[in-house]
């Protein structure tokens, strides 16, 4: 039984290797099943996946896109001098 389980369930290293494919849903159904089986049994990998997903959705790390008016003005003045605007 144990050896069968070992054959069916991926080791942690394999799971980490295919995280991106798993998240994007590009694993085939059998791989996805084995992936999910591993996650059900392994709290460490569940936490790893959760953190990986958060790291992969890091739009909130963006600072404010709007630059200061002063900096924008300086750039526009420079480009004006160059005859570009």
């Amino acid at each position: 039984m144990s050896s069968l389980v070992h054959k069916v369930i991926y080791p942690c290293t394999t799971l980490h290797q295919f995280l991106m494919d798993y998240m994007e849903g590009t694993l085939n159904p059998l791989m996805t099943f084995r992936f999910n089986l591993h996650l059900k049994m392994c709290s460490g990998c569940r936490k790893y996946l959760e953190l990986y997903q958060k790291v992969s959705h890091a739009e909130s790390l963006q600072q404010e896109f709007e630059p200061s008016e002063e900096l924008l003005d300086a750039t526009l003045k420079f480009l004006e001098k160059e005859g570009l605007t």
Partner: protein
Amino acid sequence: MKEELEKKSQSKNRFEELNAPSFLVALLQSGTGQQRAFRRLVELSHGPLLYYVRKFISSMEEAQEVLQEIYLAVHKSLPRFEGKSKLTTWIYGMAHNKICDKLSDRYRQHEEYLDGLQPMSESEIVAGDLVRSSEWDLSPDQVLIQNDLREKIKDAVESLPPQAKEIYHLRDVEGLSGEDVAQILGLSLAAVRVRLHRARNLIVEMVQKMEGNDSLGVNIEKNISKNRDDS
């Protein structure tokens, strides 16, 4: 937090306005119409580009200089823009090259620092990724990163090698598509995926260390053994 994200999304959408065909027509004409369009390009792209440049050049003064060089290069090269990519992707490519030039000047004595940072070359855009949700996907609320975690991720990102930092920034922070990032960096889509995955893993591992938990890769074998013993 949500309001902040919405505001950023609006700014980003304004940047995307540059990709409208009508804008491109205005930009490629001559005379005052073109000058007006170029001014608009600067107004809409200044924020995102400055932020991108400052990921690599911390001095605001130097970043501003690089930004000016980027706009000069964009203006000079506009007649050669063939529309094979989005205008914003093409502008990021220019920015990438100027950042490489600047870092190259600064770190000429430290070549290893530049390892992997290659100027953009012509590359084909590869067909899109297949994106599907999976069983363990997080809900949008869960994906929102809490402040303390965000700070840890930011610190980890700052510690990444330049190439990993750039790929991660463009793909996961700026939210550009894999194809756009591939084109900006002159890499294949497969190379972008491999390097992005490596960068994400590095960040995850660094954050785990910061949280004092660097052994999250718990051996499944332990669980299996436990289950076997229990039964």
